[in-house]
């Protein structure tokens, strides 16, 4: 299944509203609010700001005096700050922290296609803060991953880099597998451009798999709004020596799924994510890469790339 051309939304906000636009992995997001300060972006997200665009997702931002927990069917409790509920024609995602007690400090009301959303900020919780970033993590990432999980892409836990001579390289891995180490090795040895040291988005475009940088970086702090096609994926693991071990397609789907961020609130987004990973591994070979955390790991990949292209 080839990803369909995106249908850009043309819904225009009321006149007099302030507007801002961002693009993450070719997903255009339009923000509007009555106050320009409500469109403030984090420094990482600012790198993803674009000019006016037709958008895949539109978010209106507004303040409300207080938010109470909704009376609605709870779909998923993350165990972290967010909980998802089902409502007529869409979903509610509430964000709570013990700092503010048992009441949401912000709420995202979104339609079933995750294309139109209303973000409510609680004045009771946030009104006294000097600096409020309405899209602050994990709301931004939740919105994008849920939109992608409609057969449009998948986010993976991985680092993506662009080497001047050998092109794009994607290394996926759990926490502690060596993503940040890998980015620092390639940066220092090869001067590689790092798209992200922690989160990459994969999307199919014109029969190729492209990896996209995201604003959600890791410890090394790399986040860039770039993209490049890839022709292989490496699954990082600690090793006593550098090895490149081909994975069967079924193994590859399993390993990628374990290192991705699928929505867990329903079977449809999970099924879509798995189907998308199948598409990817049908296009791109995947390899297990136990490696040593030194320059030899980079040389191993470069030698492998050289062998494949010769």
């Amino acid at each position: 299944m080839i990803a369909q051309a995106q249908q850009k939304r043309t819904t225009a906000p009321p006149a007099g509203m302030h507007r801002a636009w961002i693009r993450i992995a070719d997903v255009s997001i339009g923000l509007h609010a009555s106050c320009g300060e409500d469109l403030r972006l984090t420094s990482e997200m600012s790198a993803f700001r674009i000019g006016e665009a037709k958008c895949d997702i539109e978010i209106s931002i507004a303040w409300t005096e207080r938010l109470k927990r909704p009376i609605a069917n709870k779909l998923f409790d993350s165990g972290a700050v967010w909980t998802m509920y089902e409502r007529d024609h869409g979903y509610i995602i509430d964000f709570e922290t013990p700092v503010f007690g048992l009441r949401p400090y912000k709420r995202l009301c979104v339609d079933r296609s995750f294309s139109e959303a209303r973000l409510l900020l609680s004045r009771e919780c946030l009104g006294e803060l000097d600096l409020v970033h309405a899209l602050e993590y994990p709301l931004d990432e939740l919105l994008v991953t849920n939109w992608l999980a409609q057969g449009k892409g998948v986010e993976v836990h991985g680092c993506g880099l662009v080497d001047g001579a050998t092109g794009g390289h994607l290394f996926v891995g759990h926490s502690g597998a060596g993503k940040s180490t890998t980015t620092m090795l390639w940066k220092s040895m090869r001067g590689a451009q790092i798209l992200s040291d922690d989160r990459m988005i994969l999307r199919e475009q014109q029969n190729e798999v492209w990896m996209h940088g995201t604003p959600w970086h890791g410890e090394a702090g790399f986040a860039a709004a770039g993209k490049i096609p890839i022709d292989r994926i490496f699954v990082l693991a600690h090793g006593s020596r550098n090895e490149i071990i081909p994975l069967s397609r079924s193994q590859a789907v399993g390993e990628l799924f374990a290192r991705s961020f699928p929505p867990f609130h329903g079977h449809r987004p999970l099924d879509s994510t798995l189907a998308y990973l199948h598409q990817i591994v049908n296009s791109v070979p995947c390899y297990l890469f136990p490696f040593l955390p030194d320059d030899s790991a980079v040389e191993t990949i470069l030698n492998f790339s050289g062998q494949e292209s010769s």
Partner: protein
Amino acid sequence: MTDEHRDPESKKAYQSPKLSVISLRPEEAVLGHCKNASTAGPVSTSCTMVGPCMVVGS
């Protein structure tokens, strides 16, 4: 095609299905947790951060 016309060498050897164990990390796959000095899991009740997190579930 009858059996006598099939090339026996073209038949693949049967491989029985294999089960593989994939390590899942739900505390990483579910968005919203941060990595700090004491935990790599979900945001704990001791978290007082509301502002931007510098290390997003790395």
